């Protein structure tokens, strides 16, 4: 439905011709909005360049490869090997995915396919409420509730499952697992919301065909719903991963902030985002240290860009089959429009 009316120009209608001033208003309006949109791009590019410039001294001092992969973060000696931070980011995010994604997908499947119709809306809202809690509040809760209450259980698990890799040994109060668990809770609403969107695009015909062939509800989910939405759910999980990688405040409070890479999941560690939040104060007067932190931010930026680019591709592809556009990536999607309202 392209607007045909847009072609009607004042010149076509000499009788009602507008004054010269009135005619100038439209291009001006259009130009103004275009500039605004362009400004966003310019701003992003500017920031990116600025970050690189500021990170340069530290990267030149340490070497890019060595910055990312050498296992020694010691700002007081001007040694900046960010591997312990990167490792912590990866370990906690992986833990978050392992715990959070199955729960989120189960929630999405239950809400869309199994729950009674009148529970659907309340359940959706409740899951989304998890996203309304600020990360600093999760951090507060993690420090004063999760860490003390889970310590005993963690010790038991560490003792009884010590045959597993990366499990066993002493349980530190703040550790990778606690951070991963908090992150799992924090990514749950977004993974669940997008999975729900994707699952709701599965054509009813597919599901009905499965049921008509005598499939049980679960078999219908397994043979009709999951294969159709697999790439979309993968995308949702990746978007969650992007969130987990960049999360700062909750992690900095419960990860222990130790620059030594932990040997097991209940050891203390550090993450890229956490180190920035923690050390920028002392780094303010030391360009090298500040540069290293900015470089850590740059690594974080590039990491999340890659993950989100991939995720978006997957989700868009999943949604395009239905002819719909990708909903806003935040929880706003569900609040604004139901899928059938979205124009094709």
């Amino acid at each position, binding site marked *: 439905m392209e*607007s045909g*009316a847009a072609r009607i120009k004042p010149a076509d209608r000499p009788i*009602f011709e*507008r004054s010269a001033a009135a005619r100038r208003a*439209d291009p*001006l*309006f259009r130009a103004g*909005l*275009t500039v*605004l*949109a*362009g400004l*966003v791009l310019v701003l992003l590019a500017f920031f990116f360049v*600025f970050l690189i410039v*500021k990170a340069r001294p530290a990267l030149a001092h340490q070497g890019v490869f060595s910055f990312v992969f050498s296992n020694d973060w010691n700002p007081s000696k001007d040694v900046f090997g960010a591997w312990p931070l990167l490792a912590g980011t990866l370990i906690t995010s992986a833990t978050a995915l392992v715990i959070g994604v199955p729960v*989120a*997908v*189960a*929630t999405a499947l*239950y*809400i869309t396919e199994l*729950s009674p119709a009148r529970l659907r809306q309340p359940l959706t809202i*409740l899951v989304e409420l*998890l996203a*309304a809690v*600020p990360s*600093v*509040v999760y*951090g*507060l*809760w993690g420090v*004063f*509730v999760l860490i003390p209450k889970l310590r005993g259980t963690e010790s038991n698990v560490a003792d009884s499952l010590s045959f597993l890799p990366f499990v066993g040994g002493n349980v530190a109060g703040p550790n990778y697992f606690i951070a991963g668990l908090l992150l799992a*809770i924090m990514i*749950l609403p977004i993974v*669940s919301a997008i999975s729900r969107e994707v699952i709701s695009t599965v054509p009813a015909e597919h599901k009905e065909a499965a049921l*008509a062939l005598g499939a049980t509800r*679960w078999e219908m989910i397994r043979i009709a719903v999951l294969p159709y939405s697999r790439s979309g759910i993968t995308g949702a999980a990746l978007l969650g991963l*992007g969130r987990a990688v960049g999360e*700062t*405040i909750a992690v900095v*409070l419960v990860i222990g902030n130790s620059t030594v890479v932990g040997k097991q999941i209940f050891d203390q560690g550090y993450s890229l985002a956490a180190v*920035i*939040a923690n050390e*920028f104060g002392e780094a303010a007067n030391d360009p090298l240290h500040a540069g290293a932190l900015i470089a850590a*931010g740059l690594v*974080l*930026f590039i990491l*999340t*860009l890659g993950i989100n*680019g991939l995720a978006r591709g997957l989700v868009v592809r999943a949604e395009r089959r239905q002819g719909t*556009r990708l909903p*806003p990536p*935040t929880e*706003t*999607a569900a*609040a*604004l*429009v139901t899928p059938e309202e*979205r124009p094709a």
Partner: protein
Amino acid sequence: MNTTAAQLLAPTSGRRRTTDRVMRAVLALGTVVALIPLVLVIYYLFSRGLKGMSSTFFTSDPTGNFLGDPGGVKSAILGTLEIVALASAIAIPVGIGVALYLVEFGKKTLFAHVVRYFIDVMTGVPSIVFGLFIYVTLVTSKIGGSFTGWKGSLALALLMLPVVTRSAEVVLDLVPESLREAALALGVPRWKVTLKIVLPTALPGLITGSLLAVARGMGETAPLLFTSATVMGTTYNLGERMNSLPVQIFNDISQPNDAIVNRAWASALTLVLIILTITLIARVAARRSRVA
């Protein structure tokens, strides 16, 4: 309902029925597990938060004393409101403007696609990186002082902008093309169609999206840590260091003093209640938009 039909043809085997029942239970259990943290967080927020609400909690500033009375969080609450108000004043008009460009003019042009892509990119950028952006460009260069409230607002605005734009684009897309065509056919210039027809029609949806962005910005700590920083006293001057609830909570958590930790819980309760109120208003506005 399908069982009766299925039984007529070939009875579903006991094993399949058991699998079905077990998997349904697993999915339901997953949903319950997802809601446990919500219940726990809310429970602890109220049980510990109410304890920390002293009579002067809302009316006094933090004293900075490590022993004795830690004071209230007046400066933090006011600071949060001021910082977020300025951030909204920047992010909402710009965000809706960009969305208007995308829907009304850009449509499927290459430039519009590029803008859309980078708006998506922005939603994925970690909030601390936005703080870092502002820190390296405005704070270290000491433009208008080092740490100031308005720099915190800018960092939050960067965070809120893509949320506003993405949600605004969705609702603007929903405005029926026939409305625009009718107005254009009557000889109304494009800018007037946009401002007087498209925007009012989409208004409830725009309000919802904007409010959700405000709620999101309100809870962010990381972008404020090294932009507006922290301070004890109340200030109404966005050109000075400014306290905010999230940063106040963050600082209070690591204090070895029960009174200060209680204040953190009470502040957290306050913050969550403010955010929930905004979210609730947003939902009410969203319900209106369905009618439109």
